């Protein structure tokens, strides 16, 4: 017996708005992302609301949740870039400052090098081997997220503005009233920490 047309329709174009777990989780991830970028909870919630309303209007075109998610995050990213570029109010100038005490600590970015600035033998980078199967990749993305969350807030903010929102370093310097040298330091440290975290928690484990 052929399926009733509306049933077929709902299988082909399921209504994701009915999936509370999915929409709640998506919303939380979006707010977290937007808040970090905008340093303003209310502005972030507004941007997420706009992005969700716009995306869910067209949600029936998406037959997979993954595609819908990619789409709403793309809309959200555009909104964030617009807000960052247009708003006259600068992010508080202290938001990307490094605590000076931190500069004296021997940290991840110093550890791999000896006093002459060469790699310690045991710390020399070797090529990363990435698993091909998707189940392992799911675990990889969880590890990646954990490493990202472990970054100090100002490193994470600089890194996300650069790599996730896709602003240029000049734009970030302008938005956050940070010198280019300072930003280079922040991005370098963020990358060193992320690299180290992935090395220890993923690649060294031969996962």
């Amino acid at each position, binding site marked *: 017996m052929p399926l009733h047309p509306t049933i077929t329709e709902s299988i082909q174009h399921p209504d994701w708005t009915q999936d509370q777990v999915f929409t709640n989780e998506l919303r939380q991830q979006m707010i977290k992302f937007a808040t970090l970028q905008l340093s303003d909870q209310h502005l972030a919630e507004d941007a997420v609301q706009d992005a969700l309303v716009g995306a869910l209007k067209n949600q029936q075109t998406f037959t*997979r949740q993954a595609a819908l998610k990619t789409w709403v995050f793309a809309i959200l990213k555009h909104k964030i870039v617009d807000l960052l570029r247009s708003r006259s109010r600068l992010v508080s100038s202290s938001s990307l400052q490094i605590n000076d005490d931190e500069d004296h600590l021997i940290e991840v970015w110093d550890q791999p090098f000896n006093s002459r600035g060469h790699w310690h033998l045991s710390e020399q*980078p070797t090529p*990363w081997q990435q698993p091909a199967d998707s189940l392992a990749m799911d675990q990889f993305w969880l590890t990646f997220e954990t490493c990202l969350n472990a970054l100090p807030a100002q490193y994470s903010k600089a890194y996300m503005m650069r790599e996730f929102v896709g602003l240029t370093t000049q734009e970030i310097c302008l938005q956050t009233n940070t010198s280019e040298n300072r930003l*280079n330091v922040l991005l370098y440290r963020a990358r060193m920490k992320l690299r180290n975290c992935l090395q220890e928690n993923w690649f060294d484990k031969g996962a």
Partner: protein
Amino acid sequence: MLNCKTITKLLSVAQDRKLNLAEKIRLKLHTTMCSACRAFDKQLQELQGFSNNFINEKHTPKD
């Protein structure tokens, strides 16, 4: 010749802007001889790739 630590900083900057000729030459002189820094360079590029894919990939349900 620049040491590895300085080279890693230069490699990070190279992710964000085009290097000038002098920087490129110094980088090339070093990485030609240093496999660790070559591997580090590759890892930085992979890191950028992971970041670009992160939002699209994480927690996406399977078909």
